[in-house]
């Protein structure tokens, strides 16, 4: 039984919903058990976010809202959006606006890359630290 396999077993167990696990073959026997997670309901709301981050991380970096305010994809209702999914962008380029206290704050790219996803919704509030735009960095 090598440590690598053991590592993998732990990983599988942790991710699973199983509370008990047993494995036996000619050479070895493993047994894992856990107690029921008692405050699941209360903390569960934070979980999807964690999972989401894990999944999306490999694809790029989220630009997060640096302040609370109203999210805009364009400078005025008749203008073209600053960016669209699939578009290449340059470091320093304006990605969107966040309006706070009647001031329009330009949110700029901090690297060259490609827009993979826009999660902010036009005219809707974004919270502090909310993921708004996913950028895959160019290397």
């Amino acid at each position: 039984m090598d440590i690598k396999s053991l590592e993998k077993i732990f990983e599988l167990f942790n991710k699973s919903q199983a509370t008990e696990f047993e494995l036996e073959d000619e050479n070895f026997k493993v047994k894992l058990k856990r107690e029921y997670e008692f405050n699941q309901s209360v903390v569960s709301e934070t979980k999807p976010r964690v999972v989401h981050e894990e999944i999306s991380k490999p694809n790029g970096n989220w630009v997060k809202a640096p302040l609370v305010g109203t999210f805009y994809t364009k400078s005025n209702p008749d203008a073209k959006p600053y960016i669209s999914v699939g578009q290449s962008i340059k470091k320093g380029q304006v990605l969107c606006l966040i309006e706070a206290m009647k001031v329009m704050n330009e949110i700029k790219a901090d690297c060259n890359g490609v827009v993979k996803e826009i999660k902010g919704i036009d005219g809707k509030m974004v919270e502090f630290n909310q993921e708004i735009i996913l950028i895959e960095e160019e290397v």
Partner: protein
Amino acid sequence: MIQKCLIANRGEIAVRIIRACKDMGIKTVAIYSTADKSALHVQLADESVCVGEANSKDSYLNINNILSAALACGADAIHPGFGFLAENASFARLVIACGLIFIGPHPDVIDLMGNKINARNTMHKAGVPIIPGSLEPIKSIEEGLKQAQSIGYPIILKAAAGGGGKGIRMIEDDESFLQAFNVLRQEAKNYFNDDSLYMEKLFVNAKHIEVQILADQFGHVIHLFERDCSFQRRHQKMIEEAPCHWLTQEIRQNICQAAVTAAKAVKYDSVGTIEFLMDEESKFYFMEMNTRIQVEHPVTEMITGVDIVKHMIRSADKQKLSIKQKDVKINGHAIECRIISEDYRNDFKPSVGRINFYHAPGGKDVRIDSALYSGYEIPPFYDSMMAKLITSGNTRLNAIKRMRSALEEFIVEGVENNLEFCYLTMFNSNFVTGRYTTQFANDWIKELKEREPTL
């Protein structure tokens, strides 16, 4: 009519305000820092908005983000709770400038009462007795020394813009005055950006008595009787009660009337508290006014039945006071213990961590205002007060007995706390007789420390 209220606070007071709003049919918006994502107030509110990083100055003091959140959510009012922005007049003015209702008094009163020297002057003029001491900022160390000598030591030197136990020095003699003056002036500048200092006579064996005020925007002011908040460690209240056991009917009448006079003098239009010191001869002196809801408001609610937070919201909403002075009666006695995550055996060192197990007491005459639940992680960034336990009884002794057994039932595992300290206090004979002064808690803590090996 207020439809949606943003609560610019956290912890048990945020929970308290959310509950009041729900009862009144007002939608609630919680704000939280990145460290408070799973805090109870976030879970109880109808909506919640993250307003910044863990550090208070980036979140709970982040005026821009808080106002943006209120506007973006369509809130029409903001309740500041206590601490944080509660007595920040500029914040209150900004709230109003945004077209929102600030649930608190007019910003001018916050300003006026926030400067303790101005507050003293105002009260003096209104005929409310103030503690012997300066009527304007001390101009120089020499002038201060003269003043101190004429008042007579011990005196207490204070920052005019101070509060919450900060910017205060007790002075015993000329030497310690000369040592302290410039240090405190610098401290005042650093903390409050205002280096004005003033002094007051120090009463060693005094009672801290405060009177709860309800007022509206139509000039009506009533009181909800007094609280005894003399149980203080380093100027921080720990155990409060209502009414004050010591007062005769006559003194009670006088002190409550003085409080109403004080509130009327500043055209007070919300819920507030007038704090007095009372010396051994039962003479009382105005100390300061708190222009906000206070931690200890539940003891007054317990003995009067009046919901102070709801009245505060109604007054801000331009409604007239719905009760008259004659409707307010004292019914029994109530005591509050602040449950804090501090280790009383270790100089009240703050403790943080996960609440592995939480079990609150229940039953008749027990009230819990808490932000805890089993599994909650106490973040290290904020105040150490986790919960308030309030009990009441027909008599003071019954309230104490109820408190004893409620404390026995109370379990908070995972962080150090003061449950045991409160429990021991409920058996201390000075506490039980009610004849304790502001000096008492410090002596009692010292005594416990000395007895520790035998406990």
